């Protein structure tokens, strides 16, 4: 893990204000994430003064163009109904992989939080008018593990800031906890969030 949020002071009300701590943390995480991606891909860097939501959408649009198709056969494929209780099942599947691979500690916690965030996004936002599938795919390749969370919804679109929309921390959190995040969301869907984590040495977990 190379990115992270600073500790939040006790008593701070997260999401208290659009100009508040949560918004700054989101923006800072996006900036750090995008600067790293910019070094790797040559894409333009985020302007720190740009509003978070606009920067997020611009980055998303760039990712739509930049992410190649998934072709690697998976070690794990889990298809679930996009319901809240399915996130628990996905987390248990991750725990099972960790059991088999000998992962634990901070690394496992990071995996679970990031993948849970992606799954929760599907549950909350992918299917506004009913049920649909939530797909979790994972594979280990060399010294990295990749998880892909996919839905069959209509893709990510700009939306009004509402209470139901949440804090908007999901994607930045995934970016902060993983070593690489790719979002693929062509118009009309489906949406695919791919997260790659470098597997640390056992003594560093």
């Amino acid at each position, binding site marked *: 893990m190379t990115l992270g949020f600073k500790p939040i002071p006790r008593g701070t009300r997260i999401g208290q204000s659009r100009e508040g701590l949560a918004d700054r943390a989101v923006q800072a995480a996006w900036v750090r994430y995008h600067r790293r991606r910019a070094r790797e891909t040559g894409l333009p860097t985020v302007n720190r003064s740009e509003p978070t939501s606009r920067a997020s959408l611009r980055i998303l649009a760039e990712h739509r163009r930049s992410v190649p198709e998934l072709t690697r056969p998976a*070690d794990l*494929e889990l*298809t679930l*109904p996009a319901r809240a209780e399915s996130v628990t099942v996905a987390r*248990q*599947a991750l*725990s*099972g992989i960790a059991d*088999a691979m000998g992962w634990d500690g901070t690394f496992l916690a990071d995996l679970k939080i990031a993948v849970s965030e992606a799954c929760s996004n599907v549950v909350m936002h992918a299917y506004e008018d009913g049920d649909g599938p939530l797909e979790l795919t994972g594979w280990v390749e060399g010294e990295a593990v990749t998880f892909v969370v996919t839905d069959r919804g209509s893709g990510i679109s700009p939306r009004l800031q509402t209470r139901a929309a949440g804090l908007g921390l999901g994607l930045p959190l995934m970016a902060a906890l993983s070593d690489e995040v790719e979002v693929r969301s062509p118009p009309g869907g489906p949406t695919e969030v791919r997260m790659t984590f470098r597997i640390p040495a056992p003594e560093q977990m």
Partner: protein
Amino acid sequence: MSAADGIVLRVASGPLADAVVRRVVGAVGAQAELPIDRLQDAGLVTDAILDHLDRDQVQIRLGTGTKGLELAVGPLAGGEADRIIDRSRMPDLGSIIERLADRVWIERSDPDEFLCVEVRRTAQG
């Protein structure tokens, strides 16, 4: 099996399948409100099936029925489901799968078949 539940797990055989399937069966079994002893039975039935499944990849469909947990392993080749049940037989006990599950049946969908088991909240017999 309730089509709405629609949980499908595919995982590479071996230690990965053993660990992941056990965890996922436990989670879905808990959602089916199985008590602890029945969760353990579901885990043992799953282990028995995996022990005798001769494949590179395990595919399991899981769901919560009205009476408990239902799972279907497959697609399997013709006769493979019966072979798995037979191989799980132990002296004086019979098939572990048939002993611990409340219902065992084979769904055939030419040319494949699925080994299906149901573990209820309250054991039958």
